[in-house]
């Protein structure tokens, strides 16, 4: 009895979240997808390292941090671009995107240098 109630609640929660998410604008969804992609890549790299050992540790770090770094930058882009966010009302989204691109480029320079 309790179990079915719990699952029913979980289902209800899940549905409500899903419908709420569907309401988000498309550009934010694209950014979310990008973040997902970056994190997935990071997870696969960690799994690989778990299998073969961390011998060129710098390469591992470089790879994982590139994914994590770009995910973080995408998160900050999402925050800035989100229209519901009152703090960044005056910031044009193009400007945020330009920052995103610039920071990514710098991040990747460092990553490539550290890759070895």
């Amino acid at each position, binding site marked *: 009895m309790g179990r079915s109630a719990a699952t029913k609640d979980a289902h209800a929660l899940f549905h409500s979240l899903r419908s709420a998410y569907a309401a988000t604008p498309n550009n934010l969804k694209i950014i979310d997808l990008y973040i997902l992609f*970056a994190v997935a890549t990071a997870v*696969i790299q960690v799994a690989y390292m778990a299998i073969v050992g961390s011998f060129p540790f710098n390469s591992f770090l470089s790879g994982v941090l590139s994914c994590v770094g770009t995910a973080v930058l995408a998160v900050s882009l999402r925050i800035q671009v989100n229209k519901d966010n009152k703090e960044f009302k005056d910031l044009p989204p193009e400007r945020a995107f330009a920052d995103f691109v610039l920071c990514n480029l710098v991040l990747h320079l460092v990553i490539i*240098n550290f890759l070895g």
Partner: protein
Amino acid sequence: MARDLGILVIVVLVLAATCQSAVVSPVSESHRSAALELFSPAHGSYGSLEETYEALKTFKVLGIEKKHAIRTSSCASVADTLKSTSSALKDFFDALRVNSILKCELNSEAVRGTQSRLKDSLNGASSLIDFYYSIGGLVLLKEQMSEVDVNLGDADRIFRSIKALGQSDGRWRLSSNNPESSNNAAGIALEALAGVISLATPQIDNSWITTLKNDILKLFDGIERYDDGTYYFDEKHVGARGHQSPLSSSASVVRGIAAVAAATSETLNLPGEKIMGLAKFFLGVGVPGSAQDLYHQIDALSYLENIRESTPLILSLPATVISVTKKDQLKVRVSTLLGSPAPTLSVRLMQIFVSGSKDASVIDQELKFDAVSGMHVLETLPKNIDVGSYIFSFEVIFHNPEHKKTYVSGGRTRVLVHITGVIKIDNAEIVILDGDRGSVENQKKLKLPGDNAVALSANHLQKLRLSFDMSTPFGNAFKPHQAFLKLRHESGVDHIFLVGNSGKKFEIILDFLGLVEKFFYLPGRYNIQLTVGDADMENSFLQPLGFVELDLPDAPEKATRPPPQAVDPYSRYGPKAEITHIFRAPEKRPAKELSLTFLGLVLVPFFGFLAGLVQLGANLKNFPKSTVPSTFAILFHLGIAAVLALYTLFWLKLDLFTTLKALGFLGMFLMFVGHKTLSHLASTSSKLKSV
């Protein structure tokens, strides 16, 4: 052989310096061959006229005939020098010296010119060297060209000027500004003064000759001496003409004295002992190594030989090692310095001293003169002379009493002579004795010297005895310098023992009980080696006799270890073993297939992203349509692609600095283009909003 003798003589001289047994030998073939070797002309001439003169004089004294080619080139050189107006005073002097030996044909005009030059130089001379060259030149001219008048009118003034440079100790200074005096300069001054005497118009003051005699005696007061009776002149300071060796200084003085002796008919009363000492000095040099030294030696010896009143005679021994076994006879030669025969005389052996002790025996035996070889022979050795080293003392007795006044023989001449012989060794045997009772356990006879290979064995309670008898060819006892018995263990440790003697019997007893500790308790095979030797023993030997197997007790705890043996130098200093370096094992790399699988797996999220984009309905609708903005947009994307390509290149092969430089340019471009694009997009979207 003669050169070896010369070297042996020098060695003997050195060894016997303290006991006055100096043996020198007269000028011999070795001097002649040395002269030919040292004075070999380069391209037909000797270089300068001075060198030519030295060569010619040496050959003349030694009696060596030289080739005609030298004569022509030298005569040409002489003629050129005498004719030339630019010749220096020294050149005239050298040319005239060479001519005195070669006797070339000279141009009478050149001769007159030379004479006037020499006379002018003499009048203006102030230094000793100038006086020497000008007077010497005039003397030589007078000898060679008797028709030329070179007599000096103002000989008195010249004599006084030269004398003014003399010092009270008999030496001379080279000039009035030079305070240093030397023997070398004294020799030059004496030659010059003798020249003045011979050139002066017949009225010469006798007081001059007396002055010269006194100068010579004063000079002899400053002579130096070695313990073996050799006298020589040396310089205290380095003079203006560079360092003069005792050989050149002594030769210079001898030349001066000879010149004075030749210039006057009076006797100079030279001290005979010192003349003999000088002769010994020149002969004691042996055969000099340089041309100039040979010239000085031979020149001085030729003058000493011809000194009227004290001609030295040399007593020499061709061989100082006499073998009793070969029945050699002791031969003595008495000759003049240049090797010419002496007047009739006899040699007596006066005394014999045993070398190294104070024993002496008076012999007084006359040596028989063998006219064929020109030697005095000691036919039989005195009775009590056996194998060993002795100093023989000889004396020369002249047959004609007049000769005693004109010849100098040097009194008693002492010579170190080695009498050698084959020493007989008999009754040699090696025995192993039983310790307590002394009974013979094992006895082996030995043949000494000869091949022996005994094989003995002993333990530490036994003794080893080696004994033999030694006697000289005359049957007397003989004690050699060396009599050693060496036992060498197989590991290389040596033990050396002295073999003592009583009279003729030599014996050594090794008591192993007492030697156990000395032998470091090492048991095993010991090789036996006997060494018997002496300088006068013709059959000295060093021989292995065989081995003895020693059985020694075990070493106690505190026993000394045997000394470490010398390490084979190649093993210590040679190359060492190769070092194999152990590296850290390389990290295990994953399998290639696994890596490639994961490469594929990593790309999967990317495709997932693209798929998701399509599903979301992402489009390029907002891409600018009109030309300029679209160009900028395209450029913007291209710029980003270029940066990413730069990063790939950076990873592949570039370095940071090139990358940063390129990145700078690309970045600026990208900024510009990006700004344009994004501002265009911003304005478009704001237009849409406002609309």
